[in-house]
């Protein structure tokens, strides 16, 4: 089983990202589970969402404390939240930033990877909505999910032009990260 933790701010679509990952992974033939760290947070507050992927049906219902992968939607969160908490050695922490991984002095044995997802999203989608771009990048970094599956999940969730543009951003981010895998 692989466990993923997503950090974001209210309104950034962290819960949607988790849900899309679960849908895409299931399409890939895995069992999946996605749930938010339920809160009463309003727009702007730090939020967390969780995803589990497994070859077998998933029964475990606790929150995730030792994630294999961490996705950080907004680099400013690094100062506020311990995004590296419990991250497993050999895993990845993927941060949306124009900075390099080395510029983050995270106390972790996991590998830090960065991508300027905001730029990718602005270039392709035309809006600074990074959640879909980041899960594309996640697939590129980890190889856990086929990019086509994520694209399909996004197209189904956002039919029409919006879905197509997001799908394009997913592929772009995937390619950028996959090339460096």
């Amino acid at each position: 089983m692989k466990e993923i933790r997503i950090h974001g701010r209210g309104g950034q679509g962290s819960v949607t990202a988790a849900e899309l990952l679960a849908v895409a992974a299931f399409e890939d033939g895995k069992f999946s589970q996605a749930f938010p760290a339920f809160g009463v947070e309003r727009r702007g507050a730090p939020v967390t969402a969780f995803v589990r992927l497994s070859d077998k049906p998933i029964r475990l219902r606790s929150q995730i404390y030792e994630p294999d992968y961490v996705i950080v939607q907004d680099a400013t969160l690094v100062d506020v939240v311990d995004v590296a908490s419990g991250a497993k050695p050999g895993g990845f922490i993927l941060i949306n930033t124009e900075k390099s991984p080395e510029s983050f002095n995270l106390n972790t044995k996991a590998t830090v990877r960065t991508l300027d997802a905001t730029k990718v999203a602005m270039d392709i989608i035309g809006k600074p909505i990074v959640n879909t771009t980041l899960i594309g990048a996640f697939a590129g970094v980890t190889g856990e999910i086929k990019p086509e599956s994520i694209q399909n999940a996004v197209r189904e969730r956002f039919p029409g032009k919006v879905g197509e543009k997001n799908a394009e951003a997913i592929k772009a981010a995937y390619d950028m990260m996959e090339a460096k895998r």
Partner: protein
Amino acid sequence: MKNKMTVVEGSYAVAHSVKVCKPNVISAYPITPQTHIVEDLSQFVADGEIDCEYMNVESEFSAISALIGASAVGARTYSSTTSQGLALMHEALFNASGMRLPIVMTVVNRALSAPINIWNDQQDSISQRDTGWIQLYAEDVQESADMTPQIFKLAEDKDVLLPAMSCMDGFILSHVYEPVILLEQDLTDEFLPQFEPEFILDPANPMSFGAFADPTTYTEFRYRQEEAMGVALKKIETLANEFNDIYGRYYGGLVDGYMLDDAEIVVMAMGSVIGTVKDTIDMLRKDGVSVGLLKVRSFRPFPVDAVRKALKNAKIIITLDKNISVGKNEGALCTEVKACLHNTKMRIPVIGFMLGHGGRDIPMGTIVNIVDKAKAAMKTDSFIESGFADLREDL
């Protein structure tokens, strides 16, 4: 089976199940974390996917009251609520069961105020245990979805005619996305018959409902409810099998065992914690710990015989309660299990652990600690008092 699955939110899966059960009247008031169910149902109504009267009432109290009227007219009725909303319904819950009106309600379990807390535990439905409502608890989203037609059929059975709650843990099940088979309309039509009560409010046959009973008849009204619960006990088993015949899924009837037959330590629990307990048992079994699980699906009626039978080889029993009977220092399941074993020759210690209140997470480590305590108790023969399993030391 997997190719029929789709990843949806728990609330959606349940709302879909309600839809295929074709209720005539739905009446509900929004409250977190039940909201997604009523929002999805409202959308079905808005899209013409469900042919019913959907009543946006001004309170939970009126939600249940309206269904009392609707059910007496002969309608199939549904509501969903949680926590404070369920507490607000309290008085009317007795009324629905006393009038033998088979209203079905999904309770999305949540803690009770004060302090105000929107997260999961099971204090809300447990607090309504003596209202004469059937209460079943689901382990995962699929079971929550599948429980819906089962509980309609159970409640509306002419030998039962009791209102019923299908309980699912708030957020943990209501807001999780996971693969689930959405119930098929044709299979549900085959499984669930029309609701055809013997007496209804009808000008052509003008009967009176809700008469005033004095000391010469009141007891017998209550006795008949108890008798109906006895019938329900048997039907829950039958329905689980009938459901399996048609849909091909089975969760146990009244109770369900996991690694139970040879287990010295038996963990008993209800609801979504079951999955975490199962994973913990797998891990502990690898270390040679003789531990198993007895899942309780039906809390009302309480399956006394089934529990006794399932526990016959146990050396020590642990109950997990997401509720607190304040003043008794144990949860309701613990009390029930102890009472079950009394007046038998079974002398098995029962240790009750209360945990997971107000949404406090239950990681596997918490279950491991609890099992360790039971192991220690078995070794030393020392008695362990029931109590809280996950209290913080720093507050």
